[in-house]
């Protein structure tokens, strides 16, 4: 009854009808545009996702089929690559995951904290020597790391840190990665200075400004940094390789390196299976954190 009345009103009122039609037309056009965009994205997605499909397929193939047969579809599904791969090494992957989790979580926290500290100083505070130190920081990124590997190893050895997680974690708490500092600097510089000023007027110490204004306003940057640092630490193998001796303390990427022997028996299927699994936490984290990136913060308290 009631809908009827509205419908009649719609038909009776030419303006309303027109508005209705326009909306429909617009919707149709939007739909077309969206469809085209989707089509493009889907094709691109396939190109992007192909290696993962290949990896997953390989992880399910019998060992002797992985390289002989280029097709994606396995002749039989070797789920055992997963079940056996998990325990194929002298130490179970449960332990590797635990190790990786410890190192990664601490590293990400350390990275975000210490790098945002330094970035805040570089981007927002004025002090003598700022440019000089910034230059030094940039320089640390330019030296190929292979040549500092050994001196650094000697240093950590002297400190008695070798074969512990300290060499992997402590540097992250000391803003060792210039990439993140520079990244955050660039984003911090975009935040309206008036907000710092307002916070100063509100009686904020520099730390409070950093904590209550700068950090929340750089969520996209912090999200990006969190994703990168998690992925990079999670996938890092050079530092664990050098500093960890005890297999019990190995991280996942190091463990993955134990499957392949150029000169002898390799377990490619299991290695691929474990590689696929090792992506899972990272992907979950990525999906969770990318929300931060897109939830941009409109700086609209400003005139």
């Amino acid at each position, binding site marked *: 009854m009631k809908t009827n009345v509205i419908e009649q009103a719609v038909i009776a009122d030419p303006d309303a009808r027109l508005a209705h039609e326009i909306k429909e037309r617009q919707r149709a056009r939007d739909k077309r545009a969206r469809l085209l965009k989707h089509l493009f994205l889907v094709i691109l997605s396939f190109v992007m996702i192909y290696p993962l499909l290949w990896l997953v397929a390989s992880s399910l193939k019998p060992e002797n089929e992985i390289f002989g047969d280029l097709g994606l579809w396995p002749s039989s599904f070797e789920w055992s690559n997963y079940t056996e791969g998990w325990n194929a090494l002298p130490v179970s992957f449960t332990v590797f995951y635990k190790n990786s989790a410890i190192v990664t979580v601490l590293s990400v926290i350390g990275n975000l904290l210490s790098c945002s500290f330094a970035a805040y100083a570089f981007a927002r505070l004025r002090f003598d020597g700022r440019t000089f130190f910034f230059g030094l920081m940039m320089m640390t990124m330019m030296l190929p790391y292979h*040549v500092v590997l050994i001196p650094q190893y000697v240093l950590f050895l002297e400190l008695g840190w070798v074969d512990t997680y300290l060499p992997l974690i402590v540097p992250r708490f*000391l*803003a060792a990665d210039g990439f993140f500092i520079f990244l955050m600097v660039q984003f911090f510089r975009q935040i309206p200075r008036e907000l710092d000023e307002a916070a100063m007027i509100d009686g904020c110490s*520099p730390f409070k400004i950093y904590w209550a204004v700068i950090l929340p306003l750089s969520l996209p940057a912090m999200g990006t940094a969190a994703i990168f640092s998690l992925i990079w630490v999670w996938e890092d193998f050079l530092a664990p390789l050098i500093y960890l001796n005890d297999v019990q303390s190995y991280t996942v990427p190091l463990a993955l390196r134990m499957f392949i022997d150029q000169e002898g028996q390799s377990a490619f299927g299991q290695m691929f299976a474990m590689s696929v699994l090792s992506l899972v936490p990272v992907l979950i984290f990525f999906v969770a954190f990318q929300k931060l990136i897109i939830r941009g913060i409109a700086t609209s308290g400003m005139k």
Partner: protein
Amino acid sequence: MRKFFRRNTAGYVFLTPWLVGFFFLALGPILVSLYLSFTRYDMVSAPVWDGLGNYRYMFEYDRRFWKALEVTFTFVAFSVPLRLAAALGVAMLLDKGLRTIGVYRAIFYLPSLLGASIAIALLWREMFGLNGVINQVLAMVGITGKGWITDPDTSIYTIVVLAMWQFGSPMLIFLAGLRGIPRDLYEAAEIDGTSRFRQFRRITLPMLAPVIFFNLVLQTIEAFKTFTSAFIISNGTGAPADSLLFYTVYLFNEAFKFFRMGYASALAWVLLLIIAAFTALAFATSKYWVHYENERD
């Protein structure tokens, strides 16, 4: 004096973690590597002072050093712009609209997640090999391909393609940057009758400049230092015919395969100077194209 403290305290307090890390963990090894670059050092016995020997050898005799430079410069010249363009393009595409976009973001980031794993190396050789997917596709349009990855003339470009394909991290940074551009500028531009393309050129690009600058500098640094992909794809050899002899691959082999850490250090410092020169150039020109809304001076 008090004024000095007042001016500087906050800055140095915040910088403390970095300063500690730099002076206690980074500086020492950096200086040592500088010292080593003037020595012969095989990592087993003690380093032997050699003055400028390493540098002289590098510039006067070492053909592979020049080859490595050539390979690396080619890579930088192609991969950096292409990768940035791909990243920016896709970021623009993903920036607004579409509900399912989170999925795409994840998918587009996948290749970067896979990094330079053995799987990627295998796959890349497969795709760009003689009977690879690429050639199959080309065959469909009537082009006879070749072993792209095994032809010294083209192999480097497959690595460029790999780099481009792994545009995930600059893409993510661009996305974060795009989010920071105030919407009202686009509104003003709309009102001013600006076409989409001009909005991109005159609003998006300049407003994104700090982020573009970041990506440019970082990608350039990273590109100069590219190691893993080339190393893995060429089994650490730089083959075929040294066409994948990236600077750092050469450096790594000198150090760890041929036990010449002193020479490798010298190589590293030359690379550092090259990168520093490019970075300095980028910083110097940045004041003409990078606009920081909040810089007072």
